[in-house]
């Protein structure tokens, strides 16, 4: 099996979880209600834990240790989609992103739990049980707020429209796409996207929100091969601020 293809897949999964986990953790102390503060913090812990699990698989394939990989690379070495690096904005944007992202992530994990590459299958099987609760959280809140006050609906609609081009970039195919599909490591981005669309539509139909016509939208591709918005590098600088004081030290 092509190790480069596996590594590419693992970096994509790990970097997405790390960066969104980091963003979610920025809500700690600032949530609209304490319960949401706690929920975002809890999901942040899960996501960063998931990224560590994938970085550990990468280390098993000969990459550097997880701390070095996460805390010392520059933005152009990250494989996350641009969706996860965008600033939190207001709660409506963070909630919409969480909804769009986790509904895709659960499908990825469900599919990967059937992967022919056993180490990924094992990790995905374990982690999908946690992501299930993230999806439940997102869908519940979208249903509640998405059919509540006009103010809430307007906010969520505007965030949904803003986030969609970035959300579509989650499905940017990798250059190893065909190979991964043929070797049954991964079902591929098109398969994830088709299922994702069904699931988010089912939730959105229960609200007063409208999904924009996806055919007319240009996805913000680039993240999977190191092209990022101006928001990622400052996030990484902040993350590594203490670590880089002395990368050889034990903190």
């Amino acid at each position, binding site marked *: 099996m092509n190790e480069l293809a596996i590594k590419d897949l693992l970096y994509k999964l790990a970097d997405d979880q790390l960066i969104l986990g980091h963003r979610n953790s920025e809500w700690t102390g600032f949530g609209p209600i304490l319960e*949401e503060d706690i929920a975002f913090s809890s999901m942040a812990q899960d996501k960063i834990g998931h990224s560590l699990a994938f970085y550990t698989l990468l280390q098993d394939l000969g990459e550097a240790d997880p701390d070095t990989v996460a805390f010392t690379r520059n933005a152009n070495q990250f494989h996350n989609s641009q969706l996860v690096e965008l600033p939190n904005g207001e709660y409506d944007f963070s909630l919409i992103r969480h909804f769009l992202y986790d509904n895709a992530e659960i499908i990825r994990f469900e599919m990967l739990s059937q992967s022919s590459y056993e180490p990924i299958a094992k990790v995905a099987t374990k982690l999908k049980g946690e992501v299930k609760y993230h999806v439940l959280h997102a869908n519940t809140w979208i249903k509640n707020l998405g059919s*509540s*006050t006009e*103010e809430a609906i307007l906010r969520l609609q505007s965030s949904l429209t803003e986030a969609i081009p970035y959300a579509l970039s989650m499905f940017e195919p990798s250059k190893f796409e065909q190979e991964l599909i043929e070797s049954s490591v991964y079902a591929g981005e098109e398969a994830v996207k088709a299922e994702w669309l069904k699931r988010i539509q089912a939730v959105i139909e229960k609200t007063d929100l409208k999904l924009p016509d996806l055919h007319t939208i240009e996805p913000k591709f680039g993240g999977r091969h190191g092209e990022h918005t101006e928001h990622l590098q400052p996030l990484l600088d902040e993350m590594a601020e203490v670590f880089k004081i002395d990368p050889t030290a034990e*903190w």
Partner: protein
Amino acid sequence: MYGGGNVFEATKFDNLQTEDPAKLAEFEARIAHGEKIEPNDWMPELYRKQLIRMIEQHAHSEIIGALPEGTWITRAPGFRRKMAQMAKVQDEVGHAQLLYSAAETLGKTREQMLTDLINGKSKYSNVFNYPAYTWADSNIISWLIDAGAIVNQMANAKGSYGPYSRALERICAEEAFHLKYGHDAVVHMATGSPKQREMIQAALNRWWPPIMTFFGPSDKMSTHTETLMRWKVKMASNDECRQQFLDMYVPKIWELGLTVPDPKLKKNMETGQWEYTEPDWDEFKRVINGDGPCNAERLAVRRTAEERGAWVRRALLNPKAKYVKPLA
């Protein structure tokens, strides 16, 4: 994390003149027997008022306390610290949630308490008006401020009000993990590279004066709290808590080769009491009344969070209300 001890009003005998003497006697007898008072039980107004004030201040201290440490979540060095710091600060916010619920059983809503916080009407632990300049400051908070909080909260967990006492038992169990986490982080710094040792000593120097005021003014100058002690609202005096803290933690600080920045600090072997430079109580009063390095910033952050989240709370409370656009 809460030091408490510093914000009780003097209890006046007058406050009790209006209470039914028979009910008051029965209430006091129950407390003397070690019974817990529950939300629907009869209680003197003064008891209710002081408890709301105390639990509310404790809850505020948890969410405001999450700010200086929360700053370091996104900067924590390495996965191990990043995940632990997140979990730790999340616990503190969870404590606030528990405590607001306990205070609500006495008749004040969470929304009202948060409004009083951002208006500056109710207080929180004074130490959080000081900044956490570096990662090392955050470690000192996790270790020593949480240690102080445990001393205070273990005492208060034995208090007479059922919901508060039960909340504190759960909180103390979590704080015990925070203490281990904080100690572990400080040990790594204190036994690490010269730069790390320098950072942790500097943080200890900055935090020692606030830590010494954490339990509130010296008993010599505190307002009289005999009634509150008899009612098991206040369980230990400020100086008792301070002495217990020094007894437990000064040796551990010395063990790490760190210097406590107080040349007068020593244990008097004859009296068994710690002697120290009297903290600057004038500064303490100034800071608690709003003139500290971070008071304005902490409240501004909280106020912004409340304002930015208001639409969510409106939507939750009134799911079908229509937004009326201004005419102009």
